């Protein structure tokens, strides 16, 4: 079928498909890439005007609290809620054994014949299937009972009046312990704690012949690494607000994928989606942590709130406090065993790893060796043991194990061979076993500039941190202040696995300003500004004349939610395509209003439509899209057919880490300078240099913001962020912001952000993602930095002062 004969729907489909190849801009970039563009959410957020879910307060609203298990593994034998129900101010109670909830499934739902929930990864490995069950598999798991009352305080007090008879069951916290023969088996009906997602083919990777390569290698090294639990710890504790209006349901959710929340609640309540409104307001930190719409902290919370709002006839807000919000560990709780072979010149010939995860996510650790190295022999075996800890989830981001493994292997090899780690990186850079000539050929074939991204990043970074002067042999430099000086480097590909699906419309309002029509949640990564920059440049209008109000909608066009490693890089294409179409429509209409001019003879600049051959002939957009109706002496709208164009864009296979035929071309390099106090074990970060080749920085300040923020989160993860469980009870000991140590402003030295723009990204205008790169790369780098300082490897993350002293034999 030729393009012309395609139906309207088929055209949209065809236009929406991602085409591999360089996206060289065909328009003049005025707003795109400009500094000083006023960020769209800036005033609301700086002035205290921004409304978050936590702020929503409706007339007559009740407050709901859910019981959280005080035990690591326990079953409710019996529960007496009579005292709680008698407390003045308590308005409703749902118990696990109430008929309306008993045995009702939580995770997953069928939508037609299809299983639509992300019933995958960490959460799928837990036997938590009920909305309100009677068994807990980790301390802090919601179960048993939910109570609504006039105030949060009364609801909390009522929960403490619930008398539960628990049957405490054996638990296990460490994944290697969980794999031992005598370990208690956690999953009911199972005979082992080994759990794995049945659909995941990435549990075992084998490429080439590692054994042969080890025999032929000049050097073979072996080591072990342990990464302990850390988590997203978003700023705003989760909550959900639900109100019934007749048989219409309204919800305000702290979720990254509100439309998905609507699908789930619709299925659960058997209520048509058209009767449900779900709004996602500003979200105080999510980082993927509020991006699992199926789990008990999202869908479960929504269901309970909806049921209680129905039974009480009042709006209901169910909320978590800070301690309750400490769930959803990142998917890199792992112990890894490595064997690596290399030649004396730094060529890595074989990498073998066995990674044992606690509540596995979806990245086994080997993938970045495939994605961006030429190492021919790879082997990875992944084992996952269920433990009595909360399920993992992708928290900025699921690539943490891959980045950890890549960094440690490269820095260990460089050390073992006495080579500069930047040289080892360049020696092995490539793609899927191929060297750089393979990538060069690919770039030429697909129109990309053939630049050596890694080399450019390394050169810029080395200069910024004064690497050639400052880098030294491990443990070799004591400073006059008595501290040991350390330098470290790591690298990786950029986060250009742009994938996702979104739609949006561009509408030219009757005054000539431009609206982007689409719903999207906000997690602070500032894509809205970038959409407006793109649309302004594509249409030829001023940035100030473009706006998007994603919270106004809860249906219709939907931009890809800000998660899944894709936001601007897929949505930028959506708005770009829609803007191009809207511009064509606008010029078609304009052609009718100029004399003897066809649409292709016109263009738009600064909001004025002009004849290309005679620029003095021009009209404002407002003049074109409206027609004056003087007979009524008043303004009559839509006397012209409205200029509205919509587009859909899809790229990548959702959920797959690599898309065949689209190798990663961009690289990033990170450098740390640290000082370690050999007496106190304290690590002082003197300087961090991040070099990110983002292809094209559409909003440079936003890119820098992500690099700054990612560094703080990354350093925290590497140095101080560790969720700790009491070995005797399985209870979390530091589920609060005082003892779970996230960075403050005083923590670290200066961070230098260097943006490279080689245009080799797969996103719009050659861009790629930035939000996840730095926080995922930086944590692993603390190991090599401390090693370079003290000459001892610490492979037990985070690298706390205690672990430094232990490595030095002083603790």
């Amino acid at each position, binding site marked *: 079928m030729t393009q012309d004969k395609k139906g309207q729907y088929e055209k949209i489909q065809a236009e929406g498909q991602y085409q591999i190849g360089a996206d060289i801009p065909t328009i003049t970039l005025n707003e795109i890439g400009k500094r000083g563009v*006023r*960020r769209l*959410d*800036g*005033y*609301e*957020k*700086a*002035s*205290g*005007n*921004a409304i978050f879910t936590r*702020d929503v*307060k409706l007339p007559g609203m009740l407050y709901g609290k859910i019981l959280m298990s005080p035990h690591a593994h326990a079953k409710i*034998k019996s529960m007496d809620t009579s*005292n709680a129900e008698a*407390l003045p*101010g308590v308005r409703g109670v749902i118990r696990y054994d109430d008929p309306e909830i008993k045995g009702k499934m939580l995770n997953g739902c069928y939508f037609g014949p299809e299983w639509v929930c992300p019933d995958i990864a960490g959460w799928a490995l837990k036997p938590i299937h009920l909305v309100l069950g009677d068994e807990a598999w980790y301390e802090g798991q919601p179960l048993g009972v939910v109570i609504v009352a006039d105030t949060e305080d009364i609801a909390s007090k009522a929960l*403490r*009046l*619930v*008398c*539960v*008879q*628990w*049957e*405490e*069951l054996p638990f296990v916290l460490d994944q290697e312990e969980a794999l031992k023969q005598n370990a*208690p088996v956690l999953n009911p009906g199972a005979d082992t704690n080994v759990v794995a997602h049945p659909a995941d083919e990435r549990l075992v990777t084998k490429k080439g012949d590692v054994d042969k390569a080890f025999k032929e290698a000049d050097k073979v090294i072996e080591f072990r690494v342990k990464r302990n639990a850390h988590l997203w*710890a*978003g*700023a*705003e*504790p989760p909550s959900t607000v639900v109100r019934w209006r007749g048989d219409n349901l309204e919800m305000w959710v702290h979720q990254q994928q509100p439309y998905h929340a609507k699908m789930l609640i619709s299925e659960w309540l058997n209520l048509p989606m058209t009767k449900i409104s779900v709004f996602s307001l*500003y979200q*105080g*930190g999510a980082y993927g942590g509020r991006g699992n719409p199926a789990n008990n902290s999202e869908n479960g919370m929504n269901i309970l709130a909806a049921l209680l709002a129905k039974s009480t006839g009042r709006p209901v807000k169910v909320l978590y406090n*800070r*301690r309750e919000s400490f769930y959803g560990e990142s998917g890199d709780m792992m112990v890894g065993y490595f064997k690596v072979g290399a030649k004396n010149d730094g060529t890595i010939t074989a990498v073998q790893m066995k990674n044992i995860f606690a509540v596995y996510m979806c990245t086994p650790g080997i993938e970045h060796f495939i994605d961006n190295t030429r190492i021919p022999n790879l082997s990875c075996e992944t084992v996952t043991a269920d433990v009595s800890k909360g399920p993992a989830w992708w928290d900025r981001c699921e690539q943490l194990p891959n980045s950890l493994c890549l960094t440690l292997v490269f820095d260990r090899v460089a050390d073992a061979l006495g080579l500069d780690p930047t040289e080892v990186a360049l020696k092995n850079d490539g793609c899927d076993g191929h060297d750089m000539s393979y990538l060069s050929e690919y770039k030429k074939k697909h129109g990309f500039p053939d630049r050596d991204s890694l080399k450019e990043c390394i050169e810029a970074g080395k200069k910024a941190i004064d690497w050639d002067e400052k880098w030294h042999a491990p443990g070799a430099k004591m400073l006059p202040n008595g501290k040991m000086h350390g330098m470290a480097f790591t690298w990786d590909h950029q986060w250009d696995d742009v994938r996702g699906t979104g739609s949006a419309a561009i509408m030219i309002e009757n005054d000539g300003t431009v609206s982007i029509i689409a719903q999207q949640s906000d997690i*602070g*990564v*500032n894509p809205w500004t970038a959409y407006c920059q793109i649309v302004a440049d594509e249409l030829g209008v001023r940035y100030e004349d473009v706006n998007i109000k994603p919270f106004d909608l809860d249906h219709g066009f939907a931009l890809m939610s800000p998660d899944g490693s894709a936001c601007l890089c897929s949505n930028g294409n959506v708005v770009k395509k829609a803007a191009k179409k809207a511009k064509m429509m606008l010029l078609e209409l304009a052609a009718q209003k100029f004399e003897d001019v066809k649409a292709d003879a016109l263009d738009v600049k600064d909001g004025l439509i002009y004849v290309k051959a005679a620029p003095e002939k021009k009209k404002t957009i407002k003049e074109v899209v409206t027609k004056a109706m003087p007979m009524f002496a008043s303004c009559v709208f839509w006397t012209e057919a409205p200029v509205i164009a919509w587009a859909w864009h899809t790229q990548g296979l959702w959920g797959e880490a690599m898309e065949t035929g689209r190798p990663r071309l961009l690289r990033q390099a990170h450098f740390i300078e640290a000082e370690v106090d050999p007496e106190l074990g304290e690590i002082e970060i003197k300087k961090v240099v991040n070099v990110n080749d983002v292809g094209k920085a559409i909003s440079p*300040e936003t890119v*820098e*913001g992500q690099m*700054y*923020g*990612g560094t*703080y*989160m990354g350093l925290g993860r590497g140095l101080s962020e560790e969720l700790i469980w009491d070995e005797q009870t399985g209870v979390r000991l530091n589920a*609060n*912001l*005082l003892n779970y140590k*996230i*960075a*403050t*402003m*005083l923590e670290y030295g*200066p*961070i230098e952000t260097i943006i490279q723009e080689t245009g080799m990204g797969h996103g719009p205008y050659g861009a790629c993602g930035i939000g996840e790169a730095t926080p995922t790369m930086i944590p692993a780098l603390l190991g090599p930095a401390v090693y370079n300082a003290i000459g001892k490897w610490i492979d037990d993350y985070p690298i706390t002062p205690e672990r430094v002293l232990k490595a030095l034999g002083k603790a």
Partner: protein
Amino acid sequence: MSKEKDTAKHEDFPEPVSEGKIKLNVNGEVYELTVQSDWTLQYVLHDKLGFNSIKDMCSGKGECGSCTVIADKRPILSCMTLALECNGKTIETVEGLAKENHPLIEAYIKHHCMQCGYCTPGFVVTAKALLDRNSNPMEDEVREALAGNLCRCGTYPQHVKSVLEAAENLRGG
């Protein structure tokens, strides 16, 4: 292996509640209201008076700084302050700073001091208190002043630029 245990404890509810009348001057306007003895200033400002900027990241434990307000010229954690203790006090929140176009607001927008934005009002208020007592702070003084405010998104470096720029604007520089 299993054992039985009662973990929930019974307490005497409802507790006796005492109340008191207070008068607050918030952002130049006077509010008179009756508060219970255990209500915090944060609860009163956010939940009772509708000052939306008063945030809560740590569940009222004084760990995050996101509920900071200026009370009689000093930045305080409103979650750690009983409303009854604030009778007669002059309170400033970021809503008031926005209303008077305080240069910090524009500087914060210009330098992208916000990502998710949840902690931002607390920072602006803390920075305002700093500039009130020190019109020309050094970088280290800005960092020290803002060290009690947590930003999980890690916007810290941008705050320093903004506060210094706002200080300069206030000095007429």
